[in-house]
């Protein structure tokens, strides 16, 4: 009560305001810190997955963000080696005439005898995927290691503070050459085995892994090219995931299928939802309320309740009379399983979309249409030429939501599209990676595929953020 009776001095006043300002900042700071925390929690895994997808072994433990694939030194080396291997600085390879220079350095503590390491181009067969089953060419059959020589030693110490080990840096240089004529091979693996006690320091390209308790530096490919090195798992997704029968790239086919499915689903959803929404918002007819309730009701019934009956409808080609199926009219005599048409058919009707469009049309002033009516416009004309152009924001929001839904849809594609591999959409196709590559610990392809499948939705979100928000508010309020 002191403040009310006695006027505060200027100094007190200032101190009080200062305190208040500090408190405001503290509050703002807390809120921002919280939001930042949430952002990190939500974006963190995505970032981590993206970076891990570049690694040779994404599961390497403990996890780290400092990976060789992100070091510029390795990029230039990869480009140079790719150029030397197959005159291709981007994707590399190993072609006739190649001479690939390479260096590797060890730290040798004092008192340890230096023995020349053994350099071998191994006959390495992939453990998973088509490479494990199909006959492949081995670089080992065409490559030879030449001119292994020891470079001048450099004294060095490692460790810090009280614990230092003195010794020297021992480096070796050699060349891998392609002997004679032969096919171009896409990778050139290399193993360099030293004696116990010699510790791997560095090499022209960082080793893919150290094996045999540090004795062997193992390289998956010493002529990768920049993209072949940094985006190895991504390149493999396109190159290695092929149909065993036709050798067609399945990943591309799946992406194509996903886009086709999303495109037609958007077209069908927009057409049905806008017409139904318009009818429910504007036309006065008997049972209108009931129909609207039914539309809402279909939204309330869980998908799992309906899916068996819907599945049977698809399997039997909608209606079967004797040998005749209704779906044979558009080319599916044996039912519509395993066809994109069937998938679009079964997912086209979306009560939520009808609801959004109805709400939007109700927000358009009736007067606009009445003016058209006076000019003699029919219902169709009013719908198509007057209301639809005004509904662009709602249609935009619906397009985006539908695209996102279709692109990420797993349940129905999983049920409907089972065979052949070339009919699948991207999420279903990615599932096969788990059996093929995950089973042998090769998680890089799965991560790379998953990251790529997220890209279209991320782009869509960044470009059309505004519509996403509108989409949410259309569904929610009646404004």
């Amino acid at each position, binding site marked *: 009560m002191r403040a009310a009776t006695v006027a505060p001095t200027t100094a007190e006043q200032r101190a009080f305001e200062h305190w208040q300002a500090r408190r405001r900042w503290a509050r703002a700071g807390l809120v921002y810190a919280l939001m930042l925390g949430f952002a990190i929690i939500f974006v963190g895994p995505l970032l981590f997955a993206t970076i891990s997808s570049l690694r040779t*072994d994404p*599961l390497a*433990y*403990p996890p780290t963000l400092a990976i060789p694939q992100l070091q510029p030194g390795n990029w230039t080396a990869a480009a140079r080696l790719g150029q030397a291997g197959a005159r291709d600085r981007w994707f590399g390879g190993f072609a006739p005439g190649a001479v690939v220079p390479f260096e590797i350095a060890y730290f040798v503590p004092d008192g340890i005898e230096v023995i020349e390491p053994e350099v071998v181009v*191994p006959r*390495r*067969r*992939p*453990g*998973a*995927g*088509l490479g*494990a*089953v*199909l006959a492949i060419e081995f670089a080992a059959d065409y490559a030879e290691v030449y001119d292994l020589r020891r470079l001048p030693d450099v004294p060095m110490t490692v460790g810090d503070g009280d614990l230092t080990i003195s010794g020297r840096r021992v480096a070796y240089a050699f060349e891998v050459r392609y002997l004679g004529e032969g096919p171009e091979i896409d990778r050139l*693996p290399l*193993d360099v*085995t030293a004696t*116990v006690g010699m510790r791997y320091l560095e090499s022209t390209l960082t080793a893919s*892994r150290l*094996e*045999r*308790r540090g*004795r*062997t530096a*193992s390289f998956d490919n010493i002529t990768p090219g920049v993209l072949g090195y940094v985006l190895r798992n991504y390149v493999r997704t396109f190159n290695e995931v092929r149909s*065993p*029968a036709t050798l067609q790239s399945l990943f591309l086919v799946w992406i194509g299928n996903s886009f086709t499915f999303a495109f037609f689903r958007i077209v069908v959803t927009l057409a049905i939802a806008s017409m139904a929404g318009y009818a429910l918002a504007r036309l006065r007819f008997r049972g209108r309320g009931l129909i609207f309730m039914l539309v809402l009701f279909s939204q309330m019934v869980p998908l799992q309740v309906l899916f068996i009956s819907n*599945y*049977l409808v698809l*399997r039997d080609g909608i209606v079967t009379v004797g*040998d*005749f*199926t209704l779906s*044979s*009219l558009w080319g599916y*005599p*044996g039912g519509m*399983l395993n066809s994109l048409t069937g998938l679009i058919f079964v997912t086209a009707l979306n009560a939520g979309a009808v609801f959004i469009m109805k709400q939007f049309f109700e927000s358009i002033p009736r007067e606009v249409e009445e003016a058209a009516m006076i000019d003699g416009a029919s219902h169709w004309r009013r719908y198509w030429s007057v209301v639809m152009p005004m509904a662009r924001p709602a249609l935009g929001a619906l397009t985006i939501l539908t695209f996102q839904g279709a692109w990420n849809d797993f349940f129905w594609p*999983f049920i409907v599209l*089972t*065979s*052949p*591999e070339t009919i699948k959409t991207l999420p*279903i196709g990615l*599932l*096969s990676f*788990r*059996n*093929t590559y995950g*089973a*042998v*610990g*090769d998680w890089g392809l799965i991560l790379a595929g998953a990251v790529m499948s997220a890209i279209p939705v991320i782009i869509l979100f960044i470009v059309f953020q505004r519509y996403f928000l509108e989409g949410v508010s259309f569904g929610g309020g009646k404004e």
Partner: protein
Amino acid sequence: MRQIVIAILGLALLGGALAQQVRIMGYGGQDPAIKVRLLDEVIGASLEAEGITFTYEPLEGDYNAALFNALSAGTAGDIFYIPVETAPGIIATGKVLPLDGLIDTNAFIDSLVEAYTVDGTVYGIAKDFNTLAIHYNIDLFEEAGVEVPNAEDTWESFADKLRGVAALDADVYGACFPAGFDRFGAFAFATGWQTFDATGASNLLDPDFVEAVTWYTDLVREGVAIQPSDIGQGWTGGCFATDNVAVAIEGAWILGFLRNEAPNLQFGTTFMPIGPSGERGNFLYTVAYGVNVDSPHRDAALRVLEALTSPEAQQWVLEQGLAIPSRTELADNPFFLEDTPEAVANAVVFAGADDGNVLGFQFGTIGTDWMTPVNDALVAIMTGQSSVEAALTEAQRDLDALIQRAR
């Protein structure tokens, strides 16, 4: 009307053209590519001469769930894989054609035929199989100055060798022991214990079973063995590839993994250690081809089944290093005598099928749910939350309830 007529005609023509098209449903992974190569290189020509061809449809995700769905929807293939662990359940649906008198089963390994026999009737022909073996890291044993495991090892000598290697370094262990019956069970069988006794009950409080649990979990509590998750791995193979453990107890499936993740690992393979019963214990993991009872092309399907399990096909698969054959006659194949680590591993796994107490990886119609109480008990004991006796008593109670429900 014209369209309808055309449609019906089209359907009839299509039906005629596809009469001999046999559909096979099976695992994803490598199998689709293997089938394509088999068809192209080995069995395609003779099938084609009879007007038969086949397509392979991999079921991704959970194979058993997908197969049961396909069977109930009537969309299952003419031939489908029957995993051994769910075989009794799949056969109980009545959708699998009995093969007695249709296929000669004498040429196949007895225990494999047995796993697919219900009430004296055979329902599936094993495609290939796996058993467990000891894969050991030669570098680690050399560094520790310990003799590598061999076929004469008993539980005691085997454990001593693991102790010797584990003493090498703080991050080196003797073995990764997962808390799962799917690996541990092989040790339980080495005591003479069986999953189901004569009355069809499972006795977890049997002294033999308790002994096996004690031996297995004590090694973990002693720090000689470790659970894979404790060193950031998902399975034993992961521990092995990173030089963290001296031995991995796995089947031949570890070979593809090692080729990818540790191509330079120097390893050898030997038999499971001899248990207190004086015998080894082992699991038989397998998958069989079964014929759909509703198949419209039953004869063609049987013909394809014969071709897929023919000596030529199995020999090709073996020589490519893809799987271990289910025919006894292939025991003498020169591939098994080669001196490479992979060939040795395959030979040991092949021989494991009839060496000691070998039981199918099978739990009657209960399926793999049977393992849940046992696995929970193993976790509780390994982490020190519960004593062997208390954990097994609780597991027995849960298991009895489970079996009761299944009946």
